[in-house]
């Protein structure tokens, strides 16, 4: 066996061994490594204000207002233009954020620990669908909801986690894959299992019944409640396989609405980017083709982990959004076998005879076959201040993989 194959085997072994558990909810400034007071984390590869997409700009404006750095849009834009806000990728701080992925110091984040290797990952709390910060909206109702989440939801969850002990996220994902979730755009089962697990501990907190009722209704109505736990779970597992010399395995697929970026295990500290594509979209009522922004969000960490589009066979309903059939869904999962080196041992697909989901994207296989990673995704409006416009399907751009292959050959060839 060659050095690359050995390294890839080791990377996949570590990813499979990882055991991500949710251990709490804390303020970002208190737990995220390297977070400073005038810093905003964002999804995707590095980007500066001038190049930011509409939804990322909108989320930056909203976060600046939420933090009290500015009263309204104009003030927030001036701060960003003057370089008074530091922008840095979530991924470079052990974190992930869906869509615009903006995390500010005062926001609460889930803390996920990989009990096998000791690394941690962080993600903010999910705000629901529609007019929300992560899709670039920043009106008063968006900011009010974020404040309510900090005042009522986060303290309740913080106390509940103290009573629950570590929550096994891998087990929840494994179960949900047998209940119709692909665990990216469809997180119905994961969210229900998580809430069912937490409810006794939430009641034990002794918080006011009306507070518990409001938080439980909010989280129960939100079919993406678990997405913000799934993402750091995937991040914690994949980071375990990152930084292995000679490994060609992709440990990050992500987008900031302008660029698509990947990271590769054997090339730590480097981003390989290409322009982000535009997803094929099913629009929410009131939106139309041309409203959609380019691909955005750290949530493609799900596909990097063999979930989402890679586990399409489990959730034909997601493929149906663009007119696909159950056969198309299975074919997407079959196709992803061609660019991966292993099958997951815990995440399986009932409709594929319980075959493991395709795991370990190999940059060599992507470049050689021309088959691009298939991603299920939320879609934001292209302009700041609007919000979500639908769900879509998209492929990662080839240039990221070609650039990574060149860098790999320069380093190891």
């Amino acid at each position, binding site marked *: 066996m060659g050095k*690359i194959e050995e390294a890839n085997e080791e990377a996949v072994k570590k990813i499979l061994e990882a055991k991500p558990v949710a251990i709490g909810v804390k303020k970002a400034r208190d737990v995220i490594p390297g977070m400073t007071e005038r810093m905003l984390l964002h999804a995707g590869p590095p980007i500066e204000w001038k190049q930011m997409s509409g939804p990322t700009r909108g989320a930056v404006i909203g976060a600046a207002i939420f933090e009290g750095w500015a009263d309204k849009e104009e003030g927030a834009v001036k701060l960003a233009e003057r370089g008074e806000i530091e922008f840095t990728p979530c991924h470079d701080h052990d974190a992930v954020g869906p869509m615009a992925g903006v995390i500010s110091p005062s926001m609460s984040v889930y803390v996920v620990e990989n009990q096998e290797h000791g690394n941690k990952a962080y993600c903010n709390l999910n705000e629901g669908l529609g007019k929300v910060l992560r899709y670039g909206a920043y009106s008063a109702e968006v900011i009010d909801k974020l404040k309510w989440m900090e005042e009522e939801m986060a303290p309740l969850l913080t106390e509940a986690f103290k009573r629950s002990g570590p929550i096994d996220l891998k087990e929840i994902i494994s179960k949900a894959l047998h209940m119709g979730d692909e665990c990216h755009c469809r997180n119905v089962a994961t969210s229900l299992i998580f809430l069912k697990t937490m409810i006794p501990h939430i009641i034990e907190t002794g918080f006011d019944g009306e507070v518990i009722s409001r938080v439980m209704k909010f989280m129960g109505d939100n079919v993406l409640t678990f997405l913000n736990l799934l993402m750091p779970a995937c991040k914690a597992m994949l980071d375990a396989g990152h930084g292995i010399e000679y490994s060609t395995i992709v440990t990050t697929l992500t987008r900031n609405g302008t660029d698509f970026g990947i990271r590769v295990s054997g090339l730590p500290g480097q981003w390989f980017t290409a322009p982000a594509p535009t997803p094929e979209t099913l629009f929410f009522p009131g939106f139309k083709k041309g409203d959609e922004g380019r691909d955005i969000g750290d949530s493609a960490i799900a596909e990097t982990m063999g979930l989402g589009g890679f586990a399409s066979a489990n959730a034909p309903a997601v493929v149906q959004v663009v007119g696909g059939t159950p056969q198309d869904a299975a074919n997407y999962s079959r196709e992803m076998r061609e660019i991966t080196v292993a099958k997951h041992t815990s995440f399986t697909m009932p409709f594929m005879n319980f075959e493991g989901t395709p795991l370990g994207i190999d940059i*060599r296989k992507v470049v050689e076959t021309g088959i691009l990673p298939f991603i299920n995704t939320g879609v934001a409006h292209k302009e700041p201040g609007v919000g979500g416009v639908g769900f879509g399907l998209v492929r990662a751009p080839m240039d990221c993989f070609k650039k990574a292959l060149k860098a790999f050959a320069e380093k190891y*060839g």
Partner: protein
Amino acid sequence: MTVELLRKPKIINVGARNFHDSLKAQGADSVHVDWRPPAGGDREMVALLDKLKKI
């Protein structure tokens, strides 16, 4: 056997799918193989892939 094959051709189409689609539209028994040249024919990438095969 040869006569039978000529009477009802069985076709394996490799590469461009539109040949397969045309045959199917005319009722022919065609199987499509989704083959593409390695790295889409990008010679620089093919050379890099060959180099990495030696590691």
